[in-house]
């Protein structure tokens, strides 16, 4: 308590800086994973991808990031077992650890998940720095389970989505006409999921509170509007000359329009789930310093989410767009009809997780979705060694996050309390 009384302001400023640092790192690096399929399938230009990312990552973070942020800030540790001072220092250490690990991984090109890092960091300082009992191991177990289940779920959804495309559109006599007719339904699906999440979880900041049925109804309305808008956009896609070579090229152009919507969903989902990695600890610190004790039910303040969202976007426009460009250029074997299935599946999975406050890796969900499309024989060749290496990174990331966090925790403890 003494610590907070004496250093309260400094700690908050430090926390904001660290939180912004991590959020910046997310925007500079992690967002590229979410936008990779859109740019790689040539459905979007870098510029379009950047604009969509800026708007929808921000929206996802601010309007839908509250639940996961809440989990990160107080859902994983038993606040009653940690003194407020130590909690503040631990959360600071966690943020710094995550930011540094993310920076290192970016420089080296490792595909690490910030979610895994922050969870490892928080569990690390709590278990080692305070005591094993201070961690809600049940909750951690549940989160770990969702890390395994989410790529599988995304894979199943992606498989079903692509199968439906195969059955109803690609194998038809006139795929182009069928695509024009049926793609708006996929647009509805994308719009529905995103709107529903916003309605159910995101409007509390704005002071609006709705019943469940009202949220669903409004989401349906918005999704319908989205689908109609999409249908309008599709009328501007005309079939080109009648050569056989361009038969499927035309269909792919229809799906490219659909990818605009799935890219928005992807950016939104990513923002809603990953902003917590940056500002979850910040929210915890603010809560503790403000009230002097840890209140289990304090809602996450809007300005915290806003800081995260701004940090994300800043990272995006300063460095992120370059990463997106690099990735986009290098992916050559993906077409929109596959890309959208992977994106919609991944974003639905992540959006559902965000609604329930479960932090997970967007990248893993996307890889799972891509595998799902591959299982439906939609992709020429997927390198399973790369899949393995992406999924295996958590083995290194969890301990790395924990170790760095523990080091910084004891460092801060020495600096402030010694």
């Amino acid at each position, binding site marked *: 308590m003494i610590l907070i009384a004496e250093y309260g302001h400094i700690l908050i400023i430090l926390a904001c800086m660290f939180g912004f640092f991590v959020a910046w790192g997310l925007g500079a690096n992690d967002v*590229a*994973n979410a936008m*990779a399929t859109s740019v*790689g399938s040539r459905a979007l230009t870098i510029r379009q991808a950047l604009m969509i990312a800026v708007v929808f990552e921000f929206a996802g973070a601010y309007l839908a990031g509250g639940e996961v942020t809440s989990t990160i800030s107080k859902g994983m540790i038993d606040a009653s077992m940690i003194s407020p001072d130590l909690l503040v220092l631990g959360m600071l250490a966690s943020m710094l650890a995550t930011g540094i690990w993310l920076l290192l991984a*970016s*420089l*080296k*090109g*490792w*595909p690490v998940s910030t979610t895994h890092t922050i969870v490892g960091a928080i569990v690390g300082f709590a278990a080692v720095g305070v005591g094993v009992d201070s961690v809600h191991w049940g909750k951690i177990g549940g989160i770990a389970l969702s890390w395994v289940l989410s790529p599988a779920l995304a894979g199943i959804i992606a498989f079903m989505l*692509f*199968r439906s*495309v*195969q*059955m109803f559109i*690609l*194998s*038809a*006599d006139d795929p182009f006409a069928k695509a024009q007719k049926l793609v708006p339904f996929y647009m509805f699906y994308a719009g529905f999921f995103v709107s529903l999440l916003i309605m159910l979880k995101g409007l509390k900041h704005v002071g609006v509170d709705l019943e469940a049925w009202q949220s669903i109804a409004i989401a349906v309305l918005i999704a319908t509007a989205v689908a109609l808008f999409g249908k309008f956009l599709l009328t501007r896609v005309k079939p080109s000359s009648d050569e056989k070579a361009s*038969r*499927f090229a035309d269909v792919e152009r229809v799906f490219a329009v659909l990818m605009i919507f799935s890219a928005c969903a992807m950016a939104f989902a990513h923002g809603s789930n990953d902003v917590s990695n940056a500002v979850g600890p910040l929210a915890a610190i603010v809560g503790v310093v403000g009230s002097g004790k840890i209140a289990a039910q304090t809602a996450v303040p809007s300005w915290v989410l806003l800081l995260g969202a701004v940090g994300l976007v800043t990272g995006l426009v300063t460095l992120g767009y370059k*990463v997106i460009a*690099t*990735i986009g250029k*290098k*992916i*050559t*074997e*993906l*077409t929109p*009809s596959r890309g959208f299935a992977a994106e919609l599946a991944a974003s639905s999975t992540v959006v559902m997780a965000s609604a329930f406050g479960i932090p997970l890796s967007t*990248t893993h969900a*996307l*890889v799972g979705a*891509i*595998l799902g499309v*591959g299982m*439906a*024989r*939609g*992709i*020429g*060749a*997927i*390198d*399973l*060694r*790369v*899949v393995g*290496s*992406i999924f295996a990174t958590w083995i290194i990331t969890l301990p790395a996050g924990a170790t760095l966090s523990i080091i910084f925790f004891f460092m801060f403890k020495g600096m402030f309390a010694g």
Partner: protein
Amino acid sequence: MLGTHSLTQLFARSPIKPLQEHMGSVVSCAEHVIEFFKASNNGDWQRAAECYQYIKKLENQADDEKKQIRLQLPRSLFMAIPRNDLLTMVSHQDKVANISKDIAGLMLGREMQFPESMRDDVMFFVESALAVVWKAKNVIDELDELLETGFSGKEVETVKRLVSTLGHLEHDNDDIEIKIRAQLRKLEAKLPPVDVVFMYKIIDQIGKLANSAQKVGDHVHVIVAR
């Protein structure tokens, strides 16, 4: 600043294009057998030798492409077309080029000419073998459309029809082979026996050429039947 990003390496290069390019080399190689026969029938052994050199060059090219394909198919690739099926198709394709080279090489070495009364029929036989090869190429060319539709629907029907035609062409080739053999049998008593033995061998090889080409197309049928 940043290392190679893993997501870019996730999508490995599709093996279909290299397969189609290999088939292209194989077809060019086989086509020159017709030129070779024209030259050898006229007794123009210099031209025939040139044709043989060209066939040999293309066969080497196909060989290199085949090796490249094999190198780029590690077991860790998860593909829409199973690895074994791809490797089998490449082998059958490559065999067509090998047989083409063998035919031209053998005939050149012996300055072999079929009896004059048979020459037109033999030419017809060779052309019918080439028809099988060209049809097989049509089937291989459909592979990227097949992948696009995810091996379903109308495209599968198209491929099945092509493979059926391929089968008919190969049967026609078989029938012609029987007729050619019968013709040679009538004439063989009046011809140098060693030459006759090699003539039968060449007839056999031409039949095998068509056979290998048909196996390529047939294998595509196996892939879509799953």
